């Protein structure tokens, strides 16, 4: 009988190699730590460990930075620093919900589109993606928010409904490529139903792409929220950096910059760190650098 000695050749997969490479990327690790710090802050707000007093009036109008109010107070006398910290929670909430759902939706629709490419399903989905991409983003979002006026998730829904197309196209392209691979043919030959093939064999092999896309969407969501809140179409209850910046437009004219600075700096910090994290993640997952 033909017997072979079974010693594992190598115990590495895409993920373990990626983890190894990522750990050696200093900038990537630093940005990851930074993002985790922000996440910790957001968590703390959710559990009310801090910044639960963000709407309390605790000082006079436009006080300068002091030991009590690290960034001073705003027009009404609320502590700017607390408000900025509270906004971190909002940012993460918006970012995570939108990133998760938009990427997930894009993955499923993109996979179906790619698997049945050149058929009517694909044509319809491509058409829908095309239409959504052609509408100017803020007009579209504004219209949805306006139409869903009282719904606190109007902004989230609006963002998800346009952001999913990027993930959709990426996954579609990848699926078209994977579809021709022999393990997919093998599944056909065994008689595995087509939808099962998509979800069991193909989609799991796109997760590295989806992860990177999710991080990009996260950042896009936060930035969009800032502008939408600034335009009054964003967050309604609660506080966000966008709302703070909106508030500060008048203040800046009067020479008071603290509000603006607090919100901008924190936002800049998160976006910058997350972007660098996303870059490092992409490099670590790059299959060409993985033998």
């Amino acid at each position, binding site marked *: 009988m*033909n017997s072979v000695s079974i010693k594992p050749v190598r115990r590495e997969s895409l993920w373990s190699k990626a983890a190894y490479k990522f750990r050696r990327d200093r900038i990537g690790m630093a940005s990851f730590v930074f993002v985790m710090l922000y996440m910790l802050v957001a968590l703390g707000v959710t559990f009310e460990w801090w910044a639960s007093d963000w709407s309390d009036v605790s000082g006079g109008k436009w006080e300068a930075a002091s030991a009590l109010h690290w960034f001073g107070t705003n027009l009404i006398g609320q502590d700017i620093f607390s408000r900025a910290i509270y906004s971190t929670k909002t940012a993460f909430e918006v970012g995570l919900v939108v990133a998760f759902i938009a990427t997930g939706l894009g993955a499923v629709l993109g996979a179906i589109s790619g698997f049945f490419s050149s058929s009517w399903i694909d044509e319809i989905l491509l058409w829908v993606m095309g239409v959504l991409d052609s509408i100017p983003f803020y007009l579209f979002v504004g219209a949805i928010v306006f139409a869903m006026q009282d719904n606190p998730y109007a902004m989230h829904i609006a963002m998800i409904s346009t952001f999913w197309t990027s993930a959709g196209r990426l996954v579609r392209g990848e699926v078209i490529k994977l579809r021709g691979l022999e393990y997919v043919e093998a599944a056909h*030959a*065994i*008689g595995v139903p087509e939808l099962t093939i998509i979800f069991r064999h193909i989609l799991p092999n796109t997760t590295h792409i989806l992860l990177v896309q999710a991080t990009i969407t996260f950042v896009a969501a936060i930035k969009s929220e800032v502008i939408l809140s600034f335009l009054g179409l964003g967050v309604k209850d609660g506080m966000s950096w966008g709302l703070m910046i909106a508030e500060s437009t008048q203040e800046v004219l009067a020479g008071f910059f603290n509000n603006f600075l607090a919100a901008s700096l924190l936002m800049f910090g998160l976006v910058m760190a997350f972007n660098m994290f996303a870059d490092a993640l992409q490099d670590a997952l790059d299959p060409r650098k993985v033998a």
Partner: protein
Amino acid sequence: MNARDHTALLEVRDLKKYFPVYGGIFQRTVAQVRAVDGVSFSINKGRTLGLVGESGCGKSTLGRAILRLHEPTSGQVLVDGQDILGLRRNQLVENRRRLQIIFQDPFASLSPRRTVAQIIREPLDVHRIGTSANRECRIIELLADVGMGAEVRDRYPHEFSGGQRQRIGIARALALDPDFIVADEPVSALDVSVQSQVLNLIAELKRKRGIAFLFISHDLAVIQHVSDEIGVMYLGRIVEQAAVNDLYARPRHPYTQVLMSAIPVPDPTTKRSRIILEGDVPSPMHPPNGCPFHTRCVQAMAVCKTTVPPIVNVGDAANPHRVSCHLYN
């Protein structure tokens, strides 16, 4: 046709597979790639037909078309007398149990995110064979059949070498206890010292389980060991078909003769006069009129340019040796 074809496990009749080429603004079909252009043969239970040819001859497409991984354009594929091309998708699933496939590329033929156990178990799950406990035993049995121990079941494909992955692929193909397996260049991507190991395994499985094979390869040396009969393909057609010893002893078709002479023999003392072909293979989009080989054939005659040569049996009824060539017409 084969005198015993009423017992043939698999019979292919005039199978064609054309791929449309789209062009123009409105994406209309401007041309057809004639990958398989009228192929007929039959394989009896437990026998192996080796299909040999160079790239672009259509052999891989033929293998997939028989399994309906590509839908044939026309023709018939009879399994125990029943034409499976007419079946609808859900009726086809039953036949999937009997016809399986092994692929060339050991790195692309196993799903990278699934363990060995999951890969081998999948056909059993889809066809609901036995109980869950039975299936686990079956996986161990199948691994043993291909010479691998039970300890590999929780590993992932990337942890194995090419030869080992091929064995896993073979175990998967055996899971449903098929009667017929299409082996598409199963050893071409392996190191030479491992090729014989896998060929021995396939020959042994064939003997022990009586599986019929369609063994596709570009390598006449590889195919000799496992085949009972050999078909030579060129530009979508079978140009010669004979029992394995007959073909190697007396190849009749000019293309087969070229193919045999072109193979480098690992023996420096044999001096052979090689027949060197001129030019390149014509495109399957515009195959030549008449005999597909006439553009490169040194013995081409006037009739070869206009008429497709009929298939003639230059052997006898017991040992047919079929050639499609005007030299024997």
